C-alpha cells in the first residue's frame, strides 16, 4: 500500500513539476504544458465530482457504473481465456503432434491486430445472437489466452526429469502425473501469465466495446471524452485514471489469490 501511494505521489509530483518548469521557462517541447494538454492533477480529481453533462450524474458515479460493466466483460473474458490457454497448454504437453499442428496458429493469432479481429467477433456474435457484452468478453479472451497457453506449457515442462522417472517407476496414470506433478510445478508460471492476462483482458474489453457499439462501458467513455478533449481534457484524464485503477485492482486480486495458492513455493523463493 505504501509503495502504491509512493508511486502515485511521484507521478503527480513529476507531472506538476514538469508543468511548472516548462510554463515558467516558456518551453513547449516535447509537450506543451497548457491546461488543455496537461491539466493540473487536482483538476482531474475535481472533474470526477462534476456532472458528466448539464443536469447529468457526477462523473465518478457514471464511471463507477461503467467500470462495473467493463470489469464484468474483462472478468468473463479472462476466465474463458485462462481456461482455453490452460487447455491448450495441457494439450500441447501431452501431444507434440498437436503442438506442431496448432502452435503456429496460436502464435499467428497474436500477430493479427485486435482492432482487426474485434469487428469480426462482433459481426459473428450478432449472427449468433450473443449479447454485445459477451462479444466484448470474447475479444478480451482473445488477448488473455496466449500468455496463459505459453506459460502453462512451459510450466508443465518444468519438472525435473528424475521426478518424471519417479512417476514412471510408480506406473502412474497420465492424469496423476498431470495433477500431482506437472500442474503444481506449473502454478508459478501460470500465475505470472494470469497477471499479464488480467491487464490484457481489461485492454481487450476497452477496445472491444468500440466495434461492439457497447454504450455502457469505460471504452465508450474514453472514445466520447477524447472527442471532447479540446473543451474539457480533464474529463478524459480522469477516465484514464479510473481505467488504470480498474486494471490495478484486477492484478491485485490475482496476486492475492496467487499468494494463497502457492504459499510454500513463495517461501522457497524467499529463502533462495
Amino acid at each position, binding site marked *: 500500500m505504501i509503495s502504491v501511494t509512493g508511486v502515485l505521489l511521484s507521478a503527480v509530483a513529476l507531472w506538476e513539476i514538469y508543468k511548472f518548469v516548462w510554463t515558467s521557462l516558456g518551453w513547449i517541447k516535447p509537450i506543451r504544458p497548457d491546461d488543455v494538454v496537461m491539466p493540473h492533477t487536482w483538476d482531474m480529481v475535481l472533474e470526477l465530482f462534476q456532472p458528466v453533462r448539464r443536469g447529468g450524474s457526477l462523473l465518478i458515479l457514471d464511471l463507477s457504473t461503467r467500470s462495473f460493466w467493463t470489469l464484468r466483460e474483462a472478468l468473463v473474458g479472462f476466465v474463458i481465456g485462462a481456461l482455453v490457454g490452460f487447455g491448450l497448454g495441457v494439450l500441447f504437453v501431452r501431444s507434440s503432434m498437436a503442438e506442431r499442428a496448432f502452435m503456429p496458429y496460436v502464435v499467428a493469432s497474436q500477430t493479427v491486430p485486435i482492432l482487426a479481429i474485434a469487428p469480426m467477433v462482433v459481426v459473428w456474435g450478432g449472427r449468433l445472437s450473443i449479447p454485445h457484452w459477451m462479444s466484448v468478453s470474447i475479444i478480451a479472451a482473445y488477448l488473455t489466452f496466449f500468455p496463459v497457453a505459453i506459460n502453462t506449457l512451459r510450466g508443465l515442462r518444468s519438472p525435473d526429469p*528424475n521426478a518424471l*522417472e519417479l512417476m514412471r*517407476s*510408480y506406473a502412474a*496414470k497420465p492424469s496423476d502425473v498431470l495433477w*500431482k506433478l506437472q500442474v*503444481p510445478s506449473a502454478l508459478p508460471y501460470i500465475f505470472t501469465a494470469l497477471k499479464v492476462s488480467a491487464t490484457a483482458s481489461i485492454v481487450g474489453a476497452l477496445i472491444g466495446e468500440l466495434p461492439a457499439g457497447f454504450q455502457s462501458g469505460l471504452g465508450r467513455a474514453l472514445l466520447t471524452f477524447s472527442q471532447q478533449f479540446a473543451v474539457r481534457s480533464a474529463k478524459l484524464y480522469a477516465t484514464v485514471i479510473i481505467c488504470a485503477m480498474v486494471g490495478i485492482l484486477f492484478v491485485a486480486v490475482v496476486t492475492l489469490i496467487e499468494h494463497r495458492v502457492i504459499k510454500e513455493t513463495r517461501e*522457497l523463493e524467499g529463502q533462495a
Partner: protein
Amino acid sequence: MSSLIVDARGVGKIFGSGEARVEALKGIDLSVDSGEFISLIGPSGCGKSTLLRLIADLATPTSGSLSVNAKTPHEARVDQDYGIVFQKATLLDWRTVTKNVELPLEIMDLDDTSTAGEMLDLVQLGEFADHYPWQLSGGMQQRVAIARALVFKPSLLLMDEPFGALDEMTRELMQQEVLRIWRETGTTIIFVTHSIPEAVFLSSRVVVMSRRPGRIAGVIETDLSYPRDEDTRESPAYYTKVTEVREALRRLEH
C-alpha cells in the same frame, strides 16, 4: 518361486545409431539373490546407471534377456516391485515430508497411509513430518526419498549414487542408516556408486564394471560379517577388500 530377484543374461544396450552409436552395455550376466546388497562400481561412463535403469524399466535392453522378480522389467514396474532413489532427492516442494512419502500410496490407490509414519520413523525423521523439503538438509532430504521408495514395501530397492551429493561425514552416517534399514526390512538393494570404500562397506558383493562398452569385469565377495559399524571401516579385512576392488578397477585401465 525363484529367489532370484534380478536375472540378466547377455544384456546389452546400444544408444543411437550410425556415427552417434554408443554401446553402453555388452554381455551383462548378473544374478541377484533375494536379500542381497549388491553394489555396481566402475569409472564414469561404464554403464552402471544404465544397467540400473534397465532393471527399473526406465530404459529397454537392445539385446539379451532380463527378468526382475521372474517377470519382465515392465511387468515388475507395473506391479511396483521396486522403489528407486536418485542422486537428487527429487522431493516435491509443495508437499510436506509426510505428503511426499505418501505420494506413491496416493498414486497406487493404496488408502492406508499409516505406513508413511512408520517409514518416517524408520529413517528417523518422525519429528519432521510436517516440514517442507526445503527446510531439511541434503542428508535429511535423501532420507525422505528412501522412506518414499520403501513406503509401498517393494522387494527391491534401486539406488543410483544416492549419497553422491553429500559431504563425507553425512555420507558415512547415511551408509550406516541404509545398512540398518536393509537389515530391518530385508529388502534387496542394488546400489550404484563410484566410491570404493562405500561399495565395500555396504555390500555383500561388489560388481566391478569396465568402460566402453560397459561389461562386468569381476565380482568381489566382501566376506565381512554384518552388522558392520565404524570398527569395520578400520579393520584389516576391510582394507584388504578395498585394495582388492581398487586393483580390479586399476587393471581396467590397462
